[in-house]
């Protein structure tokens, strides 16, 4: 699975506010890349540009050389680029199985009219999907919660369901939007293991995070944004030492140092 998801020169303004001046990032298949920056740095905007929710005024987003700038979000998913959300937008009454099954939508093999007709082939297809979903659920250690409503799960488990949904969509690139929010340290470690497994399977992972622990654990390279520009790209250790980055985080530097010291 070769491929590179790249964004370069992204400029985006909302109203009079320029959120991104020159955003850029590159994720190769099988790697885990971090994207950090304080609030207002433009990382959410860059994320939304890549995933198609927002169309940049300048710059380009390419997938293995093919230009996918401005492609609609649902089409982006068909290209194998799947995202999660900072606050999981889930129906808390739905079961884990139902949630994971939703991930298979891009691979549906019938038309709307065909679905109305309810041909037997569709039923065997449904059975196959349930088997694949069960497999994913087991792999992520959620087997016991298969039929439980999402509202009864812990936050860590919900994040894992989201990862399962990404895998169901046959992702080549998984873009995680602050997945560590609300997780205990133990849950973060479980999540780390699963993200590493994604990369091992050849999936490119983009990790947007405030939590430097996760960034430090997982990412081979980190892009730092500040006020809409890329101010540093390097390994997590280099990032933690760079004076420019520390200046940008002046207020939050203590938090980071504290987080690092806790390891």
């Amino acid at each position, binding site marked *: 699975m070769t491929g590179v998801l790249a964004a370069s020169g992204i400029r985006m303004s909302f109203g009079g506010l320029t959120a991104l001046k020159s955003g850029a990032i590159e994720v190769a298949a099988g790697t885990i890349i971090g994207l950090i920056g304080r609030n207002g740095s433009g990382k959410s905007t860059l994320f939304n540009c890549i*995933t198609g*929710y927002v169309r940049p005024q300048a710059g380009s987003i390419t997938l293995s050389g093919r230009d996918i700038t401005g492609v*609609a*979000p*649902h089409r982006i*998913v*068909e290209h194998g680029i*799947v*995202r999660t*959300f*900072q*606050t*999981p*937008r*889930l*129906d*808390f009454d*739905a079961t884990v199985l*139902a949630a994971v*099954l*939703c*991930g*298979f*939508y*891009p691979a*549906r093999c*019938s038309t*709307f009219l065909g*679905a*109305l*007709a*309810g041909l*037997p082939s*569709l*039923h065997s297809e*449904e059975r196959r*999907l349930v088997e694949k979903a069960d497999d994913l659920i087991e792999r992520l250690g959620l087997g016991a919660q298969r039929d*439980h*409503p*999402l*509202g*009864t*799960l*812990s*936050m860590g*488990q*919900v994040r894992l369901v989201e990862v399962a*949904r990404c895998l169901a*969509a046959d992702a080549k690139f998984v873009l995680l939007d602050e997945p560590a*929010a*609300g997780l205990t340290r133990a849950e973060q470690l479980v999540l780390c293991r699963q993200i590493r497994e994604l990369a091992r399977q050849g999936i490119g992972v983009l990790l947007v995070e405030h939590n430097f622990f996760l960034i430090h654990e997982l990412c081979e390279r980190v892009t730092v944004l500040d006020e809409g520009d890329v101010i540093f790209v390097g390994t997590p250790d280099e990032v933690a030492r760079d004076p420019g980055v520390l200046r940008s985080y002046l207020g939050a530097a203590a938090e980071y140092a504290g987080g690092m010291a806790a390891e």
Partner: protein
Amino acid sequence: MRGFTRRPNTMIVLGLAVASVALAARDPVWTDTWVIVGVFVLIALSTGISYGQAGILSMSQGAFAAIGGYAAAVSTLRFRLPPGIDLLIAAALPALLAYGLARLVTRLTPLATALATLALGSVIEIALRNMDNITGGYIGLAGIPGIGIIDTPLKYCVLVWVMICLCVLMYENLVNSPFGRALNVIRHDRTRAQADGVNVPQLLSAAFAFSAAIAGSAGWIYAHYISYISPNSLDTHTSISALLMTVIGGSGIILGPLAGTVFLDVLVRHLPAQELQGMFYGGALILILILAPTGLLGLVPALLARLRVHRAPRGTTKAATVEREATQ
């Protein structure tokens, strides 16, 4: 046989249809009533599909039925099409119109969409009333022929209830398909659906068009059965009644509209005066919205849960709490 057990709703309605038609066959008045009730069940089902699946509170299903009825009348009277072929037109015409309109309004909030459908239904009604050369204006069209071998009220009764069973079958198939799952997600959060790869406007429009096709076919059989259609036969009043029956029966439940229609129709016949119908429907709607918002059939799971001894596990709701706090 396995195909039947995973479609419980179709099985239930099949049983109900067989039993009720057999019962209605004993008396010509009951047979006639049951054909009309069947037509209204179809229109209510179409409203249920629109609201329960696409989340579109449609007040134009009566208008779609009227288009279907007029299409049937015009095709057989003017163009002398063989009966049965006009069913395709009666279903396709409203479906196309609905698809076009839906693309326009699916980006609106549910309330605005509902108002748009009300406006559309009224526009269609006015158009039908005034296009004298095609629709016969105020007078309507009479002398609509029957449907081939379907020539007695009992046969019409069987036909309409067969159509109802087919409609429920398709509805159930939709719900169990990837599209049904996607529609559930859309109703909950459209952005999440997009992130699943769903083309939201297109899917919503398809579901709405499906509902319009069902309504159109209801109009088709109505026109052939009564052999007469006028602007007052299937109008905004019909749309409103169908909507009320759907919500009262349970809009999120496949058989909800059917339950609502049958329940209300049976009760309405015992009212002291026909004019009180609206007060009865309106009052019932308000009561249901307060006491049983998921509709009459929505009470059934609650009842069953009470009867059940074993309860589903209730673990931590940490995930739900974190989301609620985060979105404050």
